[in-house]
């Protein structure tokens, strides 16, 4: 943590430095401490990772297009499912949210920049190396990680390739990056709010990110511990997870999911914040139940620490423990329900219009709720024994992560992109992107519920013949969803070239908040003198 203290000692110099001139070319991006530049870097990095992880999903769906083994070896298939998961979680969703936090939090609370700009630069620039290491391990002898993104021992210890060391190192770097990003968010929000920006006046995106940052600070170190134990078990002869040496493989799952379940909320709480910003704008009403939204977010975060073992119902837990984790899990649907109903109540009798960000936000509410309900089904201990490790689980977490987290990120990009570039994006392309994604994502993931209930296991490159037709449809949906994202790529490239109609400062008619009061495009330095919030 020495970098953090250094960082704050030097940041007055850094500020003096870049106020006078902005370096051009690659150096601008390498040396930048500007929250907007770093936000842009994070978002582009996340998008590139999204396409990379997506390409791996295409390999998976191509193999599953037909029963039998056609395209890839089972071992390579396992590497694809593993690295797809790791890239989407740590490379796409989390950096995208961090990018949005960088761009938006200072503008929303009236701060000139993030509190620790030098550390901000570090926390981004170590990320590409983490993923370079992870991806390069795929080309080594024995292949890359093939034990699932959850790296259960003994798959990741006794039965893994030597490249596991690179996997561990990559996860350490990703974790360090997230922790630094989270510390930055907390310090910024605690110390840099404009005068008059009291806690209960903060926009919900800022609130949800603050709570997310605390979750990151609490659980990313536990993940670092878990991968370290895997490393020493595999290479240095310890026996944390090896029964022969007095360890316990089930303990791995406890430690992993103690990190893993809060991690799930790390990937969805900022999404709740985004939707809470967008819905009031296009319903032209204030958000219904602001305070209850804040308390619901905090309760979800607290509950996330006591539900981890619902991932492990089939490990042979005592009945009392299964009941405890079942009821604790179901309890989470209460604050989540509060949020869904608040959004619906915000729209009730509002003057709704359906601009592209609103379309994504509405799709989020409907489809995330489907994912939430299938989660509630999985929480029921006795039926979980049937659903466990089937495509039903795959359907569940893709509904909450793709149509949940990723749709919210797309909604956020469409909502704030005109503010960032000063130009309206290509609305025609955006609508194509939305409708193609919406239809294909449901063709892709909805049938997985049925095929899972019928007993198709996840993470297997082959399947029983009776699942052939339905898998063909799933794969077609998958390819269509993958291609739809290329529309988004074209749109983003056009937007970055500053093509399109100029927009007003407010951009959207119903938009409220400090970020809509500064000019469009947002100037390189904003709120150098803090605004006063009434």
């Amino acid at each position, binding site marked *: 943590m020495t970098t*953090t203290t250094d960082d*704050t000692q030097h940041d007055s110099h850094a500020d003096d430095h870049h106020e006078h001139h902005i370096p051009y070319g690659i150096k601008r991006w390498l040396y930048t401490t500007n929250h907007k530049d770093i936000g842009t870097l994070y978002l582009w990095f996340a998008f590139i990772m999204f396409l990379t992880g997506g390409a791996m999903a295409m390999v998976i769906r191509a193999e599953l297009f037909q029963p039998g083994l056609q395209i890839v070896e089972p071992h390579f298939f396992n590497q694809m499912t593993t690295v797809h998961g790791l890239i989407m979680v740590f490379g796409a969703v989390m950096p995208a949210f961090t990018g949005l936090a960088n761009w938006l939090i200072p503008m929303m609370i009236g701060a000139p920049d993030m509190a620790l700009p030098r550390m901000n630069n570090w926390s981004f620039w170590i990320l590409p190396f983490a993923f370079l290491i992870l991806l390069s391990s795929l080309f080594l002898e024995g292949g890359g990680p093939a034990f699932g993104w959850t790296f259960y021992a003994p798959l990741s210890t006794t039965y893994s390739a030597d490249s596991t060391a690179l996997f561990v190192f990559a996860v350490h770097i990703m974790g360090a990056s997230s922790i630094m990003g989270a*510390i930055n968010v907390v310090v910024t929000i*605690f110390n*840099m709010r404009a005068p008059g920006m009291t806690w209960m006046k903060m926009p919900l995106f800022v609130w949800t990110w603050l709570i997310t940052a605390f979750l990151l600070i609490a659980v990313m170190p536990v993940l670092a511990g878990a991968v370290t134990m895997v490393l020493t078990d595999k290479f240095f002869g*310890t*026996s*944390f997870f090896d029964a*022969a040496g007095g360890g316990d493989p089930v303990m791995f799952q406890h430690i992993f999911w103690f990190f893993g379940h809060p991690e799930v909320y790390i990937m969805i709480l900022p999404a709740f914040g985004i939707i809470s910003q967008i819905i009031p704008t296009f319903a032209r009403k204030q958000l219904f139940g602001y305070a209850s939204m804040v308390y619901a977010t905090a309760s979800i975060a607290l509950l996330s620490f006591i539900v981890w073992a619902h991932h492990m119902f089939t490990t042979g837990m005592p009945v009392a423990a299964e009941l405890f984790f079942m009821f604790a899990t179901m309890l989470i649907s209460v604050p989540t329900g509060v949020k869904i109903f608040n959004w619906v109540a915000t729209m009730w009798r509002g003057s709704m219009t359906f601009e592209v960000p609103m379309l994504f936000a509405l799709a989020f509410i409907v489809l995330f709720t489907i994912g939430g309900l299938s989660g509630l089904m999985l929480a029921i201990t006795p039926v979980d024994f049937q659903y466990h490790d089937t495509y039903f689980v795959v359907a569940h977490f893709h509904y909450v992560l793709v149509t949940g987290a990723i749709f919210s990120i797309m909604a956020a990009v469409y909502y704030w992109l005109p503010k960032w570039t000063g130009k309206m994006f290509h609305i025609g392309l955006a609508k194509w992107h939305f409708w193609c994604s919406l239809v294909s994502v449901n063709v892709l993931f909805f049938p997985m519920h049925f095929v899972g209930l019928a007993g198709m296991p996840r993470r297997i490159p082959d399947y029983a013949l009776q699942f052939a037709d339905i898998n063909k449809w799933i794969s077609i949906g998958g390819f269509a969803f993958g291609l739809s994202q290329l529309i988004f790529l074209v749109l983003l490239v056009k937007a970055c070239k500053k093509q399109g109609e100029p927009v007003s400062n407010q951009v959207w008619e119903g938009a409220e908040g400090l970020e809509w009061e500064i000019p469009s495009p947002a100037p390189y330095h904003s709120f150098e003198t803090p605004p006063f919030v009434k």
Partner: protein
Amino acid sequence: MSAQQNQAKNNKLVLKLAAVVIGMFGFGFALVPLYDVLCDALGINGKPSDTAAVYEAVEVDESRLITVDFITRINSGMPWEFRSETRQVKVHPGQLNQVNFYVKNPTKAVIVGQAVPSISPGPAALYMNKTECFCFEQQTLQAGEELLMPMQFYVDPQLPEDITYFTLQYTLYNVTTNVTANVKVPADVVAMN
């Protein structure tokens, strides 16, 4: 507020948050001994004590008869034959019993084995007292060597009334490579450091 004051405030908060990060990293490792302590206290992991019990002044409860099953299993990568001479015994709580286990190394190499016990249902593990067990230490068998390994135990008369039947399973692991590498450190020792 001046920039200097602001920086001092930032530094203070960063240090606090960094302390939380370090604390949570430690907590991850603290989960290892905590897991064993909790499993022991609640008797949920079916892990009997790995040290020898002393058999003295134990009163035999003739009114109860407990059935104990013995199951043996070899882990993958372990080529030994391994079986219990007795499949099942009926014992009074407090009564000392002996069961012999047979192992044979049919290969042409020296192999070191370690048996790990597990009891089901889990709560019974707290009342299974072994005065002598091969599982307390590792076994080294020369090529083709066979061995009869004794295990002496008594069931604690405190065994809850509702348990009348339990199973003791031994899994035999091949630990030859771990032993020759000679870097074997028990998990809890690592966690303490």
